């Protein structure tokens, strides 16, 4: 039981004066609630450190005042979004007994949807599905991350994922960063800046209409930074008319060679005839390709369909019948919304095993390596379902990995221990050194592995930037594990 007279965090009073006492808490149960990242158990990571105090700002000005206070008192800050990170965020070594945790989820306003100039501005604590839905309501489309759209905040995704988040149409649209026009950021010293071609870079502009200011592209600097360069409080994105015509399909390609032949033909076609491609494969099982076509007219839809079907057929693919059902069953496992309903009834634990960004032509080898590794390290563990997958990221790269569902009877501690050891001691090393890949998440544990690949010159540049922007090392200190 807590003591009757509680000793508050040293900044409790000042933080209350900034955001109101209802938005500040240093209660044990509140602080502990922020220590868990999703899938922590599966990925074998322990809880993060317990913050000293949690704050829920509602405005950029609140954030600025908190950061200034942190600088004055040299108390570190850990910003947190929706808590959907797959990479133990904040990682266990960041933060400490006294740090301020900024919970950004109260900054969830959609500031403006501008249909005339086709852009949207939102606070960075907004949940992505809310943002996508509000844009959709007025007939537009904003590519946001596919998994986990219901959990992640805009700021969290822009900070954490490589390229600022992978939408479901990553194959053809690229990452969310491609649509980002500008940001409002609170710098580590508390100053507020606006990036992009708007009022921050041109005092005569009232709106951010494009990203290219008469300056270097400072917007990109804050994408995938893990929050070390500043706290993003608002973001403006380009939006597009929503493509109303939709067609999904599945082909059984018979073999990996056939898949790969078709895959390489399709990614070289301009414009892309598909919106999404996903290869699902089970060792000694079917080799399926799921595709989704979106279009603005029936004519466009049919034209794209003809191209896609011709490529698949010419490469030995067959469609219809039982493979469609099998494909849908496998495909549904990739829907975050269906995660619990589709997956957990069959098993109680899942893991994306070795999911990474790899050069397109190395993807088959990477999957072979993962499959061989999975055979080896899980040989004594009951695996309920195991599907390897690859999807293109534009033309040169792929996202590839294995989805594994462990049986409910599988010992969780053993599974997590195996995963932890494999990731730490073998997988990332092989990914970087042998397959030329990148850790997909630029956050948490993966951040350190990614940073370990930086060239000395790049590392020195990054450290100089960090030091210049954050002289007191206030924001996410040592996230990159230098």
């Amino acid at each position, binding site marked *: 039981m807590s003591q009757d007279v509680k000793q508050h965090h040293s900044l409790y009073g000042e933080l209350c004066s900034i955001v109101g006492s209802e938005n500040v*808490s240093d209660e044990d149960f*509140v602080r*502990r609630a922020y220590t868990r990242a*999703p899938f922590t158990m599966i990925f074998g990571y322990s809880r993060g450190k317990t913050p000293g105090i949690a704050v829920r700002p509602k405005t950029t000005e609140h954030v600025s005042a908190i950061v200034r206070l942190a600088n004055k008192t040299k108390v570190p800050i850990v910003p947190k979004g929706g808590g959907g990170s797959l990479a133990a965020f904040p990682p266990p070594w960041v933060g400490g007994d006294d740090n301020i945790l900024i919970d950004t989820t109260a900054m*969830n306003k959609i500031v403006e949807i501008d249909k005339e100039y086709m852009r949207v501005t939102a606070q960075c604590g907004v949940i992505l*599905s809310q943002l996508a839905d509000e844009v959709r309501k007025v007939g537009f489309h904003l590519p946001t991350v596919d998994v986990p759209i*219901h959990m992640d905040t805009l700021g969290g995704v822009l900070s954490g994922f490589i390229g600022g988040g992978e939408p479901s149409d990553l194959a053809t649209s690229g990452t969310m960063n491609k649509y980002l026009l500008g940001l409002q950021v609170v710098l580590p010293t508390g100053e507020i800046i606006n990036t992009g071609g708007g009022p921050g870079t041109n005092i005569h502009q009232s709106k951010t209409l494009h990203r290219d200011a008469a300056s270097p592209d400072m917007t990109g600097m804050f994408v995938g930074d893990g929050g070390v360069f500043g706290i993003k409080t608002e973001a403006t994105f380009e939006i597009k008319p929503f493509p109303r015509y939709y067609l999904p399909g599945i082909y059984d390609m018979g073999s990996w060679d056939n898949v790969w032949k078709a895959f390489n033909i399709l990614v070289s076609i301009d414009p892309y005839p598909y919106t999404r491609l996903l290869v699902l494969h089970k060792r000694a099982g079917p080799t399926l390709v799921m595709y989704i076509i979106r279009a603005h007219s029936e004519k466009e839809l049919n034209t794209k369909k003809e191209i896609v079907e011709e490529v698949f057929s010419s490469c030995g693919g067959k469609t219809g019948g039982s493979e469609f059902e099998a494909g849908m069953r496998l495909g549904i496992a990739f829907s975050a919304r269906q995660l619990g309903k589709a997956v957990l009834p069959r098993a109680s634990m899942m893991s994306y095993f070795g999911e990474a960004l790899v050069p397109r032509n190395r993807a088959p080898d990477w999957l072979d390596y993962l499959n061989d590794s999975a055979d080896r390290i899980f040989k004594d563990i009951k695996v309920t379902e195991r599907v390897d997958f690859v999807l293109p990221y534009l033309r040169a790269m792929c996202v590839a990995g294995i989805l594994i569902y462990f049986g409910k009877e599988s010992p969780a501690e053993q599974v997590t221990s195996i995963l932890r050891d494999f990731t730490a001691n073998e997988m990332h090393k092989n990914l970087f050194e042998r397959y030329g890949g990148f850790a997909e998440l630029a956050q948490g544990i993966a951040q350190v592995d990614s940073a370990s690949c930086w060239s000395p010159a790049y590392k020195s540049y990054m450290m100089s930037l960090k030091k210049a922007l954050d002289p007191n090392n206030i924001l996410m200190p040592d996230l990159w594990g230098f």
Partner: protein
Amino acid sequence: MQSKYLDELREGIFLCMGCGVCRGVWSRKGEGMCPVFATGVGFEDSIPRGRVTVAQDILDGQLSYSKGLANSLFRCTQCANCLVLCGAIEEETGRSIVDIPKIVEAMKADVVDFGLAPPKVRDFLENIQKYGNPYGEPADKRGKWPENIAVKKYQPGDEYLLYIGCVGSYDTRSQQAARALVELLQQAGVSFGILGNEEMCDGNEVLRLGERELFQYMAEENIKSYKKLEVKNIITLSPHAYNVMKNEYPRLGAEFNVMHYTQFLSTLMKNNKLSISSKFKGLVTYHDPCFLGRCNGEYEAPREVLTSVGSLSLVEMRRSREYSFCCGGGGANFYTDLIDGSENSPSRIRVREALETGAAVIAVACPVCITMLEDGIKAEEVEGKIMVKDISEILVGK
């Protein structure tokens, strides 16, 4: 301070992946949302995922219960939206793997045992203990709700016991729904009776608040009394009573059938024993009560009886059926009002969702929902635009 009640839920607590989908999202059509999350008030501990994190820490000895934690826990309405959103079900048993409402209920029970319950919760429980109702009203006022309507007392041999419950008995607005229901049953010639002043609280809220011993005493007393009266079938006005009598009483020895009144009316209509002559007109939206819908899977019966009124049109809110948004009254919040939220209080949000449909009437099938949503309408200052009617009132044309 060890938990007495969490251990039995340990497996599910530690299987939670912490994905956060249990919170729900604001705008997505057709999907649910945790009403506490929707208020925008509170920290990670007050959303379902955070509550499981706290439970893990309590089991691991990392956290102890405190008054602050108690206040956070009792904001939960146990509406089970999180359970539907999570959707992790054991294939073999069909049970939820991470039963968040049960986890919260167990923590509430610990809190009550340790004497840390918030004052309003203590008041609620004390009133139940002393007076048999949460309002602290004398027991001899319980049977006054029929006013000028003649309703016979239940006697052995009657086919049905009509159980009204605390809110229907004491809350003047909900009493109107109770009287309308009596009118319908009498019109159909149903053999039924009420208990009047002898009726006792069903204990659903007592259990939800974690006072397990008091609940057991109340349930056993009720069961004993019903057995003495040879009760075979119970019709409840409230989904809360229906829930507890259907799901909790049997393990304590109850052997009677329980139906919510909408289920009973639906059966009567199907058997041509009740014809509705109501000329109630207009666009109506139906609000699924949590304890009838999500907790017991009954979505059709209320809609069937509503649509039997040919002059009205039924329109669905964007969150309905299993994703229906809680009015905020569950977990005794209709009395304790711990959920807070001001302009984003659940009842106000729900009223705004109802207004979006263009409906002039929110139809409900729960006395708690009546009071909560009417409060929401007042707070939103939309009294002239929309009103709340119990289905029974609509069926009698009021």
